[in-house]
């Protein structure tokens, strides 16, 4: 037997399927399981973070207009850039555009944050910026794939799936990986487990108290008593069947699943019901605000999910390509920032107040940033994609507070080479915080031990870690 298969086999043999606790005696028979499990597994080394909330802003948010002011942009506003700005050969120009917004120096860390983000300005001390991000993809879908799967094309498992595969989840009454919102233009592929077993796929949930998961709600014309009877009859039929196959654990798992599904109905609906939150919390998030309310609801639901033991929550923020401000950035960006600002800040404050921030890693990023130059001089000006230099931030478990790592050049165009950070470094760092060795978290696929990072060189960003 090939030695590198041993880990996979070990995992398979450890895997009992849902409800597997009752089955331990059967596994002693040595049956090779056909299903994988979400039962909690030990990390490779002690973890600093238990859970992750990944705020993923698809479309290419203009971080130079949000968190990373560059005084030189003012100096060269309307003039040619002092060095060549290479973008895509579309409508690019060399004409610099200063940020149309003012920045305010905030908090103890004294960092300048755009006045478009008044709520975030108040919590900025909690986060560490990585100011020298770079990605190798310049188009949305390929860059989005890169940021969530490590590869610039479709068909690879996402970060949340890898984390669940490595660690399982604390609450089997809920999925281990939940995707909230519908802002990713790559659709459900942004939370797919691809060729990792489907148990690790992100379950799409919505901030809808009535239908947070597909089929979660009992149909209106079926009473609770009827559903209980239905469950009981299925159970009786399965027990009959089980009598003929007493050693089959997959059948046992399915029997357990009905009971779990029934509990999940209650649990998922409970988590999605935000009405039980205190008035103070509701006010903090501003749930009824017209622009920011919908995103605030996602953020609050993320907190409730993590609180209930969901390992990885991914929020797609910003409504698809809206952040893709090729033109009229002055008209578009304020509304986009308003959409995410209050919920994001409230989430950090709320997690901290509840003592959850020390166990929960919050990550904020887009797939790339935007250029310091004007894309089109004819229409209202906007900025084109910038994969060469942009900002992202992390906060919470195991991450320094108020720390900055790296920088871009004086125009905010490209990451300074010695500080360059790629998606693989972020993936390695997130896994490190969760106690996962990114090189050991592998799955045997098509003749290789595949991992999230793959063959891309990856470095844990120890500088931003506590």
């Amino acid at each position, binding site marked *: 037997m090939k030695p590198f298969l041993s880990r996979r086999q070990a995992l398979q043999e450890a895997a009992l*399927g*849902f409800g597997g606790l009752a089955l331990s005696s059967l596994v002693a*028979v*040595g*049956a*090779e399981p*056909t299903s*994988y499990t979400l039962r909690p597994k030990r990390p490779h080394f002690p973890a600093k973070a238990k859970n992750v909330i990944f705020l993923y802003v698809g479309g290419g948010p203009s971080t130079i207009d949000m968190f990373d002011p560059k005084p030189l942009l003012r100096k060269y506003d309307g003039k040619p850039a002092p060095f060549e700005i290479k973008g895509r050969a579309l409508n690019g120009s060399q004409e610099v555009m200063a940020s149309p917004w003012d920045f305010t120096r905030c908090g103890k860390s004294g960092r300048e944050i755009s006045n478009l983000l008044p709520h975030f300005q108040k919590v900025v001390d909690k986060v560490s910026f990585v100011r020298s991000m770079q990605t190798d993809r310049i188009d949305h879908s390929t860059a989005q794939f890169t940021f969530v799967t490590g590869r610039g094309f*479709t*068909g690879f498992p996402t970060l949340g799936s890898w984390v669940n595969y490595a660690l399982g989840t604390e609450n089997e009454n809920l*999925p281990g990986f939940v995707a909230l919102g519908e802002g990713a233009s*790559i*659709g*459900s*592929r942004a939370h*797919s487990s691809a*060729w990792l*077993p*489907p*148990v690790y796929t992100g*379950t799409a949930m*919505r901030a809808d108290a*009535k*239908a947070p*998961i*597909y*089929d*979660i*709600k*009992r*149909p209106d014309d079926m009473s609770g008593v*009827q*559903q209980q*009877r*239905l*469950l009981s*009859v*299925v159970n*009786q*039929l*399965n027990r*009959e*069947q*089980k009598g*003929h*196959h007493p*050693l*089959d654990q*997959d*059948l046992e798992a*399915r029997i357990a*699943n*009905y009971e*779990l*599904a*029934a509990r999940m*109905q209650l649990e998922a609906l409970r988590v999605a019901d935000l009405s039980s939150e205190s008035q103070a919390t509701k006010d903090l998030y501003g749930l009824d605000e017209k622009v920011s309310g919908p995103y605030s609801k996602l953020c609050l639901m993320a907190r409730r999910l993590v609180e209930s033991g969901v390992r990885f929550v991914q929020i797609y923020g910003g409504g698809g390509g809206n952040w893709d401000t090729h033109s009229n950035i002055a008209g578009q960006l304020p509304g986009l920032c308003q959409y995410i600002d209050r919920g994001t800040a409230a989430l950090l404050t709320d997690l901290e107040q509840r003592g959850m921030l020390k166990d929960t890693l919050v990550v904020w990023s887009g797939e790339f940033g935007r250029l310091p130059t004007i894309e089109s001089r004819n229409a209202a000006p906007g900025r084109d994609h910038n994969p060469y230099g942009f900002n992202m931030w992390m906060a919470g478990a195991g991450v320094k507070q108020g720390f900055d790592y790296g920088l871009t050049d004086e125009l905010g165009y490209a990451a300074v080479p010695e500080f360059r950070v790629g998606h693989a470094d972020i993936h390695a760092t997130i896994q490190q915080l969760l106690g996962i060795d990114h090189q050991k978290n592998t799955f045997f696929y*098509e*003749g*290789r031990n595949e991992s999230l990072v793959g063959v891309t060189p990856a470095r844990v960003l120890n500088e931003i870690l506590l």
Partner: protein
Amino acid sequence: MKSVDDFGMQGDKPSHPELLDYLAVDFQENGWDLKRLTRQIVLSQVYRQSSAEVAGYLAADPSAKLLWRKPPLRLEAETIRDSMLQVSGLLNGKMYGPQEPIKRGADGQWLEDESKGDPNRRSLYLTQSRTRPVAFLHAFDAPTMTADNQTQRFRSALPTQSLALLNGPFVRRVSQAFANQLWEQSKGDTADALHRAFLAAYSRPPSARELAIGQQAIATETDPKEGLRLFLQAILGANDFLYSY
């Protein structure tokens, strides 16, 4: 061969190399006739084995690598849907033509739009879209075509599948049609209806105990037809339907 996507150095070794050789040579010598090969395999004694458990064999060879039995396998997503349509009498056998439309259901899930096109055809004819997977099929591991070449289906057992079987609009629609059909055929004779139900769904008559479970389920509801419908939903959601033995 377990590693169907890798016949190379890093793939698994075949469990029966001589048998594989024999089949390969025979296949070539008979004009590369796939239909003949398939028939040859499915008519063989080894393929037609039951899935009965023999504790000693199971301990020695749990996954039946040595082909001592047919291990139980959960049906693939499309087969589950198609079989449900078939046993309930809804299946539309029309072949060929363009894909059938899908729509968003009340809770946002994608499902067949039976008000348009030719409804209730085999799952093969449903619209396939990477970003709009039909929720029922996706729950049972139908790929969303994100992995470009999925050589092997996962056969997971997840609570979300149970949710689809308990609350999903498709199962509800199918069990209603199934109940209507049986009610008509049996003229309200519940024992006859149950007998027909087991024959249709499990290809065997019910045991005395299963019949009693059915009678009890029907009797518990005030409306016996609704009782039958609920029982049929249970039949379609039970392991005997979802697995091949």
